[in-house]
């Protein structure tokens, strides 16, 4: 007999990983905008306001992502290499995009599916 998994905690886990996926993309995008748009604008055209705006925006995105990683990882179900990938992804350009596949797989793992009772 097929039964849904009626677990509020699982729904919360799922919401958490969805948030992590979104914040990972936001963090990666703001890092790219900062490095590829704001910094060249400042140094080649003298638009210092570009980094003055994008710096805090990326800072806020980074803190939100770091908090989301800690919250997700503390909820369990992550291997050390997956945790290392999440942390590494925050510091390198395109890292958040490279982690998109991992986070999509984890979301599928956390998604409550029908279970077969014995």
């Amino acid at each position, binding site marked *: 007999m097929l039964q849904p998994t009626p677990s509020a905690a699982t729904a919360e886990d799922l919401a958490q990983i969805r948030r992590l996926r979104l914040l990972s993309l936001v963090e990666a995008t703001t890092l790219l905008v900062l490095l590829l748009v704001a910094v060249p604008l400042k140094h080649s055209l003298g638009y210092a306001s570009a980094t003055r705006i994008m710096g805090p925006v990326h800072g806020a995105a980074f803190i939100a992502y770091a*908090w989301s990683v800690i919250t997700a990882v503390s909820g369990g179900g992550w291997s050390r290499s997956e945790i290392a990938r999440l942390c590494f992804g925050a510091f390198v350009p395109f890292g958040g995009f490279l982690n998109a596949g991992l986070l999509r797989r984890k979301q599928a793992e956390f998604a409550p599916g029908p279970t077969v009772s014995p």
Partner: protein
Amino acid sequence: MIPYLWVKALHVACVLLFVGGLFSQAFAVAAAQRGDVGAAALVSVWDRRVTVPAMLVVWLTGAAIATEGRWFESPWLWAKLALVLALTGLHGVQSGRLRRLQRGDLLQMRMRLDHVVAFIATSVVLVALLVVLKPF
């Protein structure tokens, strides 16, 4: 443009809610370990509806106040930011633990309740001293 004092008042109000949320998380984790999962569920709802939005507003209004007052050049602010980062990280750890305890996982806790509570209280006192006295 919202006046500076309104932003500051909102910041202080949200700091109070955030710190209250951190304490309640710590006590709920301890209660859930002793078998009271109901407390964990209750605090998780409070966390989602109040503590997390308050934390977000603390960071946003804090950044706005620091930019407006040009405080990023002052070392005391960086010391304060380190403490707030640690408290934000603690919030993440505790909310993950609450989820695990609600799932029925048995946790090996390296942090004791009294240590966590002492850490939160000490950090809040230091933050208040740094902000008010601006010692360096």
